[in-house]
């Protein structure tokens, strides 16, 4: 571990790779036989830190870039800066099949983690070198990338935690599913797919019912009779949201559910696809009433 860190520092000095002011350290976890995330995109100049969270000794070896971490013992770590854009596959030479991919880009794009409803607005955020000017957003809906917006500082000095220096933003109106990228004179970011959906909004109400039960009523707007709805509870012993009951919306685009127990648990209704799992839209979170 110590040797790996010394070697890394020496290499950085030798290359004269001064980190940009807004460079970040990005962490990758080493599991028993896998890197997590195995596929990571970073901004040129960022430092990647591999932390060994397993009980096995691992290493990191880049075939094209040449750098190797040396042995990384359990609870140890190794880091390396990546000043040059490119795609770098890497492996652990000790464990067959333990592979990773690092994408280094001159701009780094982030956006909505979930589908967005057609006609609504969503934000794209671009991490960029501080010297970068004229960052534009390009979209590809099937006919190639075309400019759709210019990214700039967020109004009011910030945008949901993205107010750090070197980050610019753009608001996009969701018209159709597209692949987005950020571009400037120094190159382009990685591609980011944003799915646009026509799924209706789902509303839910809950009230106490007889014998300690709760009655949940769900409705979709615009009306979508026959749509599939799953009721989920957030339960400690289930380590997250757990589907407890399901139904199809009736002719009036409504459904009602009766729940027993779980007083105080967070509750939500989710409109799902034909597999009864893929979420299309969801209600706000309510709580199962206490009696």
């Amino acid at each position: 571990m110590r040797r790996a860190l010394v070697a890394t520092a020496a290499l950085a000095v030798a290359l004269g790779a001064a980190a940009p002011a807004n460079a970040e350290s990005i962490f990758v976890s080493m599991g028993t036989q896998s890197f997590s995330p195995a596929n990571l995109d970073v901004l040129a100049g960022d430092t990647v830190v591999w932390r060994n969270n397993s009980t096995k000794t691992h290493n990191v070896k880049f075939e094209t870039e040449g750098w190797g971490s040396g042995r990384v013992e359990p609870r140890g770590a190794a880091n390396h800066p990546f000043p040059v854009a490119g795609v770098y596959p890497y492996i652990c030479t000790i464990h067959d099949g333990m592979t990773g991919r690092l994408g280094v880009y001159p701009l780094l794009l982030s956006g909505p983690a979930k589908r967005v409803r057609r006609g609504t607005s969503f934000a794209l955020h671009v991490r960029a070198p501080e010297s970068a000017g004229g960052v534009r957003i390009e979209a590809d809906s099937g006919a190639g990338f075309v400019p759709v917006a210019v990214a700039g500082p967020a109004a009011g000095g910030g945008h949901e935690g993205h107010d750090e220096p070197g980050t610019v933003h753009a608001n996009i109106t969701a018209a159709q599913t597209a692949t987005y990228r950020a571009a400037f004179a120094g190159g382009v970011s990685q591609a980011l797919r944003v799915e646009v959906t026509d799924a209706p909004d789902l509303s839910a109400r809950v009230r106490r019912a007889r014998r300690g039960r709760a009655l949940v009523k769900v409705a979709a707007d615009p009306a979508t009779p026959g749509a599939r709805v799953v009721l989920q509870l957030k339960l400690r012993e289930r380590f997250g949201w757990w589907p407890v009951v399901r139904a199809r919306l009736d002719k009036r685009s409504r459904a009602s559910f009766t729940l027993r127990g779980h007083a105080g648990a967070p509750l939500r209704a989710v409109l799902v696809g034909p597999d009864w799992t893929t979420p299309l839209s969801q209600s706000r979170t309510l709580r199962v009433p206490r009696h």
Partner: protein
Amino acid sequence: MLIAASATPAEAAVRHVWVAAVPASWNIVPNGRDGITGATFEPAQTVFPTVVYRRYTKRWRRPLRNAPVANVDHNLIPGPLIHARVGDRLRIHFKNMDRTLRNPHSMHFHGVSYKPSSDGAYVPGFSGKDGNVRPGQSYTYRLTAGPDSAGVWPYHDHSPSMHHSLEGGLWGALSIRGRHERRPDREFVTVFAPMGDFQTINGRAFVGNTPVLRARVGDRVQWDVLAIGSEHHTFHVHGHRWRTAAGVPEDTRTLGPAESFRVTWREDAPGTWLYHCHVEQHMERGMIGIFQVAKR
């Protein structure tokens, strides 16, 4: 294993069970995450169409639950837990309702006595309809729980579709008690089986998705542990020990493909505990769950 005398010895019985192979959409990770590492999964990685065994009322008139409902898909994997006592005869009425994939299926039972016509295994040129029940058709397997049948045993598809079916969860368990053996207060079925990229317990992967098992201090707890697939597993429960037939205490036991055993204890350890396969790569891919013991 402790076997306590029952106050009222039961008479040998003929038990009729109605089961069908039905299509289902199965989600290996309903909460979408590994609660320990925080890794998340998309439905495209965890949901797949399959065929499962489901319990029915007489003459397959109405579907029943295989287990108490705790999930939208009724926890149909494993198939219904079939109970019997030594000396009982079992009539398993099976219907193939696989209307989507339209594959043949069957039921093949371990641990019980039967004639070759109830073996449920497909052997070209030798076996009959029992090993190759086509969609829309039915077959009755005639089984006997003999003196050496006490214990827990797997049953599974052994038709030409067997290898595909086993990875899809077309299996279940027989739980056979001695003639005068007392019933436990809690009986937990845990089937260790690979599914695609995951290692599952009862077709689910990762804590919270795998069965959340509950008992109270003082309960007599019985675990029915089975393995399906081509790998070995090591069954381990935190905070508990049991004794082998030779009286040796242990907290981990190995089982290979189609092997099965029962573990029994009087519960005395309140808290939330882990149970899992101790093959690390299996544990990392989901073969782990929680066991909650309440104070009495």
